[in-house]
């Protein structure tokens, strides 16, 4: 089971064990990680699951599609490594992934 670490804006780290096949937003909300809201349930419609993917992992998490890119363009604190966590599927390859969360969802 891949282990994912979410780090809140204040620096608090939460390690969660996640089954492959769920998305990162679900992994966070199901384990009570605050800082990921996921209001639309993963429909890429609300951008309340914005996160930053550590650079070392960007190859493995893939590229955002055009809708996600447009949404990310307009989030409160965009960065080159911004993603919507509902659009990243957890695979065994992502074991050890570190995900940082923005202040706006703190």
């Amino acid at each position, binding site marked *: 089971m891949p282990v994912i670490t979410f780090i809140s804006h204040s620096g608090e780290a939460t390690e969660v064990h996640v089954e492959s096949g769920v998305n990162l937003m679900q992994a966070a909300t199901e384990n009570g990680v605050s800082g990921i809201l996921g*209001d639309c*349930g993963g429909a890429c*419609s*609300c951008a309340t699951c914005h996160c930053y993917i550590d650079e070392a992992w960007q190859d493995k998490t893939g590229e955002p599609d055009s*809708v996600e890119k447009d*949404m990310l363009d307009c*989030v409160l604190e965009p960065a080159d490594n911004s993603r919507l966590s509902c659009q990243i599927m957890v695979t065994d390859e992502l074991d050890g992934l570190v995900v940082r969360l923005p202040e706006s969802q703190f």
Partner: protein
Amino acid sequence: MSTEHCVIIGGSHAAAQLAASLRQEGWEGQISLVGADPMAPYHRPPLSKGALNGDKSDSDLLIRPAEFYEKNNVDLVLGSRVTKIDRDAKKVILHDGAEIPYTKLALTTGARVRKIPIPGSDKDGVCYLRDLRDAHQIRKYIGAGKSAVVIGGGYIGLEAAASMRKMGMNVTVLEALPRVLARVTSPEISAFYTRIHNEEGTEIITDASIEAIEGENCVTGVKLADGKTLPADIVLIGVGVVPETELAEEAGLEIDNGIVVDEFARTSDHDIVAAGDCTNHYNPIYDRRLRLESVQNANDQAKIAAKALCGKLEAYRALPWFWSDQYDLKLQIAGFSQGFDKVVLRGDHTTGRSFAAFYYAGDKLLAVDAINRPKEFMMAKRFLAEGKTADPARVVDESADLKDLFVD
């Protein structure tokens, strides 16, 4: 150990959020979530989409897994209906006579489908869509090559029509009013959705008057007042919802198109809060009372209600937002457009599949409907909440940078 006990009545988005928020806000007492649905709270928007065509399994829909409730010490009392709230004795009574005492009560009773009296609506194959059981029922009658008649051109009807059309069904949508989505959007958006559904091969009949649903035991068709009969293997009725207020009303709480709550989500009895579709609440951004049917309101108001129960009074001040997925169209709505007197379009709604409609009352921007325009949605959502407006002359100019559109 705290002797407090919060009982949450209703088992959907607002209930799940309220239970989670209570723990986040430090509620140490017992929490019981009583839901008529046999399943733990689940996402409802997919019911007209992924759950209809089978892309999503039942467990995919859960808002939180069962372990979440265990870990947070939330008792799920599922498949149970509350029949009475006894405010004097501070207890709720269930359908089987069982009683649960409370110190605080949360009403997240939601809404139920509006039923319409059409002759023949008791036949097999006539369905409504509100919960998972309805979706399961609908699945029995749908499939490639079959025919569907959808009664009601609102969001649920149009989303279900799109899902069934994508499965290879013959779909007709009947709308009693002169245009689809008439209650919630502008003529431009209605015309756009009519065009898209037509392009995808779905017929939309407006000003439709239905005489009867035909068939022996099972539905075979829908007869219109003009004499025409549309063949149907399934008739899906989606003509809106009514708030579930009976329990609250019988308990003597104030009702006015929903359960009346104050800015802290408290009912006229301050030991009882309410959140979600069932409430009538004040929205300071629009300076009016609203009753919303949306996931956003369920979540955001539930957080305010949970805070109130924990003694932290924070006024509810959220911008309504909403979304609808049909075919390859992502509609995202920021704000609340009712009461608009002017619509300004950014992009062309008569060709293509991407534009945004800006709604105004005078100079005040009320809302933006963005179709395959996530940037417009995101910016509008942020700036409407800050009370900003947008200059119509710049809105129509697609070369104007979105970030410069919004002004005080």
